[in-house]
């Protein structure tokens, strides 16, 4: 029952957050003087075309009417224009790219597997290596393993992802020729090539992010290991391994999991930099291309989609919390 209530209240919260995010995005991109009709009217942009684009996009409506249409499109789908030239955009309609003649949702869905492949693999790698590194550093605090891991970690925290990525390409791609220098191979076509193409992006992202996770895990675990309940566990004769893994780490991981949810959610919304470095056509590349073309509907669609992903990641984290931490469940 409590879990059900927790889930419901979080879902209500997330719907409110999404409404606010959608409203802000809508105001900034459609109502501020950026002139969406001009941008989606295509070339040559004659006055007739412009007027048609305006009516087509529903820009002749007052602002609340436009916002309502926009929201309704996300939930129920919408139709641009009327009669024979009408363009149907099925729910969830995040907009329609008139330049590519494709619904934005479809564009996002075709690009998403690329971004998801990068994000999920990298996240798994950095979570495992970061937590392992942080745990080792905390257990051997102020000894050689701690110093070594924390030195690597501060270097990782200070390196930009693209720099690491480019150096990896230079070494493993161009110099040694072991791995492809870029591009993406769908998993369905060839799982081995898929893996080989993703190995460098995963490594680059994991290197910079696991540094953050190692530092966070270390500082949280050091704090937990100094608390009374850990002393009790040791006093009753529990082995050091069990004390660290079963007691200390379990509590230390709570903030780590929060950060992980947010980071993964953000990365799923577009690994903009890795996609650029490794020439992969994911959501981030779509965003950059759309900016080059000033394809406003796609830009807004991706922004909202990534905000939605983060909001969903937050809810998942909250629910996972409720499952692992009795105090949250009770509250």
């Amino acid at each position, binding site marked *: 029952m409590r879990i059900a209530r927790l889930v419901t209240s979080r879902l209500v919260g997330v719907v409110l957050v999404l409404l606010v995010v959608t409203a802000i995005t809508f105001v900034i*991109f459609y109502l501020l003087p950026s002139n969406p009709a001009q941008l989606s009217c295509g070339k040559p942009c004659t006055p007739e075309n412009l007027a048609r684009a305006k009516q087509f996009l529903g820009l002749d409506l007052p602002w609340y009417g436009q916002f309502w249409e926009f929201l309704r499109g996300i939930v129920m789908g919408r139709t641009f224009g009327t009669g024979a030239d009408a363009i149907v955009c099925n729910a969830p309609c995040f907009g329609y790219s008139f330049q590519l003649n494709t619904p934005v949702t479809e564009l996002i869905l075709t690009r998403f597997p690329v971004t998801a492949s990068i994000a999920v693999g990298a996240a798994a790698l950095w979570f495992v290596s970061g937590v392992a590194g942080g745990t080792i550093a905390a257990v051997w605090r102020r000894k050689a393993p701690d110093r070594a891991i924390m030195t690597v970690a501060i270097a990782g925290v200070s390196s930009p992802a693209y720099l690491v990525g480019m150096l990896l390409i230079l070494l493993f791609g161009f110099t040694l020729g072991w791995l492809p220098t870029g591009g993406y191979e769908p998993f369905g076509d060839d799982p081995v090539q898929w893996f080989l193409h993703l190995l460098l992006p995963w490594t680059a992202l994991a290197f910079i992010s696991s540094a*953050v996770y190692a530092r966070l895990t270390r500082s949280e675990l050091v704090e937990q290991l100094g608390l009374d309940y850990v002393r009790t566990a040791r006093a009753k004769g529990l082995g050091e391994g069990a004390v660290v893994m079963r007691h200390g780490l379990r509590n230390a991981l709570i903030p780590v999991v929060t950060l992980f949810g947010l980071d993964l*959610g*953000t990365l799923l919304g577009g690994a903009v*930099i890795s996609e650029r470095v490794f020439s992969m056509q994911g959501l981030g590349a779509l965003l950059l291309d759309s900016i080059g073309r000033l394809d406003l509907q796609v830009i807004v669609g991706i922004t909202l989609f990534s905000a939605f992903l983060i909001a969903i990641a937050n809810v998942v984290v909250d629910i996972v919390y409720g499952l692992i931490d009795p105090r949250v469940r009770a509250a």
Partner: protein
Amino acid sequence: MSAPTDAVDLSARGGTASGRLDLFTQLRRDPWALAGLIVVAVFVLAAIFAPLITAINGQNPYDYNLHALDSSGAPKGWGGGISWRHWFGVEPLTGRDLFSIVVYGGRLSLSVGVLATLVAVAIGVLVGLTAGYFGGWYDRVASRVVDVLLGFPALIFIIALTAVVSANFPRPVLIVLVMGFFSWPSVARVVRGQVLSLKQRTFVVASEAMGAGDGHVLWRQLLPNVGATIIVYATILVPSMIGFEAALSFLGVGVPPPTPSWGRAIGTSVQWFSTDPGYLVFPGGALFLITLGLNAFGDGLRDALDPRTSRRRGILHRIAPRSARTHGRQRKVTA
């Protein structure tokens, strides 16, 4: 590092002379922090005196040196055209002096990084102080806004924003404002947390009992006591802002050319790095070094002010995990 300090009292008194002395002694004993500080100082001086430094060799970051290039546009000579005239070689296609670009690029990185941090800290401190002190519905609204903004896809949003903001709006100002705007929530959260515990302390209660107004309590009693935290926090924010700006320039949506920028140089070097790795190494190395220096210094400063490292607990004990958390949040924008 294990020497007992008065870090807690330092913060409570707002940094007395003896407290400050203590801080410097601590920092001096931390070789990493000291090295970081020296690196940062070198970069700051280089940025300030950029015209003088590049004048030594009669170079500047704007003039084309086509004679230094071969027919394909690649720099002539070893290491991307390294010579006594061009210490770091030259830029492919234009032949602009890479040393000058790196030195001048530091001006952009440092000024954007520091200014965006100031924006974030100013908003964050204002919101955090008032939310923690006044409480009630105002606090609830402020905390909710903080939560929403922390869960915003900042990088995606800022990239999208560059498409719609008028080209007449100066790009560096836009970048400073939006980066600052997306970074204040973590500052507000930390400051609010500290104010919540500070306002129970006797000196605040006494001040209120003596009839001090809200303004006095906020400005004279609370603000000086969160000063140490704010300084540590700002030190950690600057490198992430520098990385953020470089990432935007790398993606081609940052400050437009010809203003020299490390991120843009790295971004352009993508097409060249199999033939001219020097073009990647020098701007990339500069970006890495300044970030590393600031992070090392920030870590040292935090350790010096963090009572946990001196086995004392106090109001500052939350800094370390919090800042690490935000650090993560700042870092990931450049993934």
